[in-house]
């Protein structure tokens, strides 16, 4: 097990390095510099600014500087707003985004897994049909449409919940529903199909043949095995929530990191886009690592397969 974890950690470090390198050189490949979009600056001033941000150095030197700074967790200044750094942006917005995202993941898991299990047990029953239909529908509509409709009907028309901004508990409701709808639908589908697959396994028949009460067959023999793919999907689930949060935070005017990321794109604030990409890359790499280790803990097959 220790060897497996070590192996995964090393892989993830490589991934993190690839993320930084790829992002850095992609941003450098951009036509024109970060100041090219501004109104034309006199040559001398441009030179001065470039020296200030060390943009006149050779490319490889800039790259190693950037690597060093990333290791020290300094993601650099914003090129659009004076005195603001990428670290500021992340520090300010992260707690809000983490609350919103964490809540969405939690709700998806707490609701999605049981509904999926029940759906599979009562295959083609009423609940199964209703939730499957809903799942297809929410998975088929772009998230900004769902968010927009929620905001319009429950926020503006019925005034049940505040339609935008952030603050009290009531502010959480609409963005969380909008954000978790897709991942919830996805988890229901995943759990359901994974349960249905387990139902036909030999060990389930053996358990029944031994006369184990139905509840224990389901709980101990089926659910435990059916949950392996669910646990393995932790990383893609987080990725989905993260990307979804760009749009949801933007629509509901929530001061989180996702909104800043979208704003930085529309502002062409390249260093912020670059820094946040690296930040998101690290975040997801971390979640992938946790997901891999959890999967290996619950499923010995994974462990043995990768070590061998």
């Amino acid at each position, binding site marked *: 097990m220790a060897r497996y974890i070590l192996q995964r950690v090393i892989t993830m470090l490589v991934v993190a390095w690839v993320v930084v390198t790829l992002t850095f050189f992609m941003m450098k490949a951009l036509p024109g510099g970060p100041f090219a979009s501004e109104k034309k600056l006199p040559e001398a001033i441009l030179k001065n600014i470039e020296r200030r941000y060390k943009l006149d150095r050779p490319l490889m030197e800039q790259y190693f500087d950037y690597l060093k700074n990333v290791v020290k967790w300094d993601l650099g200044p914003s090129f659009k707003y004076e005195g603001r750094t990428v670290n500021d942006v992340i520090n300010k917005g992260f707690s809000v985004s983490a609350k919103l995202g964490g809540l969405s993941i939690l709700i998806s898991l707490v609701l999605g897994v049981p509904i999926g299990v029940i759906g599979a047990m009562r295959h083609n029953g009423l609940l199964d049909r209703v939730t499957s239909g809903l799942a*297809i*529908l929410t998975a*088929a509509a*772009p998230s*900004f449409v769902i968010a927009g409709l929620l905001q*319009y009907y429950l926020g503006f028309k019925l005034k049940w919940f505040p339609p935008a901004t952030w603050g009290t508990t009531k502010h959480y409701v609409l963005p969380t529903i909008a954000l978790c709808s897709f991942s919830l639908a996805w988890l229901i589908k995943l759990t359901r199909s994974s349960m249905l697959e387990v139902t036909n396994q030999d060990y389930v028949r053996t358990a029944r043949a031994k006369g184990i009460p139905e509840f224990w067959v389901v709980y101990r023999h089926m659910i435990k095995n059916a949950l392996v793919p669910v646990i393995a999907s932790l990383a893609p689930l987080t990725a989905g929530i993260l990307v979804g949060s760009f749009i949801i935070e933007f629509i509901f005017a929530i001061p989180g990191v996702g909104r800043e990321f979208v704003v930085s*794109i529309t502002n062409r604030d390249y260093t912020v*886009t670059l820094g946040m990409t690296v930040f998101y890359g690290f975040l997801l*790499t971390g979640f992938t690592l946790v997901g891999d280790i959890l999967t290996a803990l619950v499923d010995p097959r994974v462990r043995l397969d990768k070590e061998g």
Partner: protein
Amino acid sequence: MAISDSRFAPLPNRQAAAERITTPPISFAADAWRRFKANPAALAGLVILVLIALAAFVGPYFTEYSYSDQIRGMNNKPPSAEHWFGTDPLGRDMLVRIFIGGRISLAVAVFAGLLQLVVGVAYGAVAGLRGGRVDNFMMRIVDILDTIPLTIYVILLAVLLKPGLTSIFIAIGVVYWTGMARLVRASVLALKEQEFMLAARALGASRSRLVFRHLVPNAMAPIIVELTFSVPRAIFTESFLSFIGLGVSAPMASWGVLASDGFAVMRSYLWELAIPAAAIVMTTIAFNFVGDGLRDALDPKLRR
């Protein structure tokens, strides 16, 4: 006591009768189609898709309006007999814009699918066939690519390449082939040990013949299914990019652009969001139904 031969009579030769095929032989494709037809949801999905594609490609020739013409004094008019889907804030006919938008969205989807087919299938087939160290190296690259948050790179690529159709094509194509590569590699690994491969090799088939004549056709079922599910993903990514301002530029439109334009005015003119959103939802659901139907129809284990 001797038994005379006359007491024996030869039995009729049943062998030929037992071997006779009573039902007409059916090809794999015909069988798959027969089972696909039996699934109403899948069939409905296919019909809807054909209708949508027809509307998108032929529809614009049947209306007198063009997607870029602004009609004076006709801003934000609700659906009517003259303008079936109403008009947008600049007084453009929404019906023809939906048709044109469908062209773009479907083109993105088809292109993403094709690229996936070419790159993903080739990559997966090579990795699976070569095996050993080459396979290991190639799959580690895929592992790394899979861990990287791809949507963020789609955004970054779209920023880099300047917003527009080409950048959407490239961004989606470059990023979404890893799933296909994994799938094809797994099928190739399973298939290459089978007897028919051994036979083909013993008969001296060349490597390209092995791949294109024997491996790829046998792995076709999962490839097709994966393709149908990847199309909605491409349409989604396109609408996502459009929403954050990286879509095709005006006056061109895609469903994603139309929906995000409609989103801006939804409080007063809901249909301007509802109609493109409905187009996206219908297409996505139809593709999912067709994908489900194909998966069942192409799976030999479910053959009845």
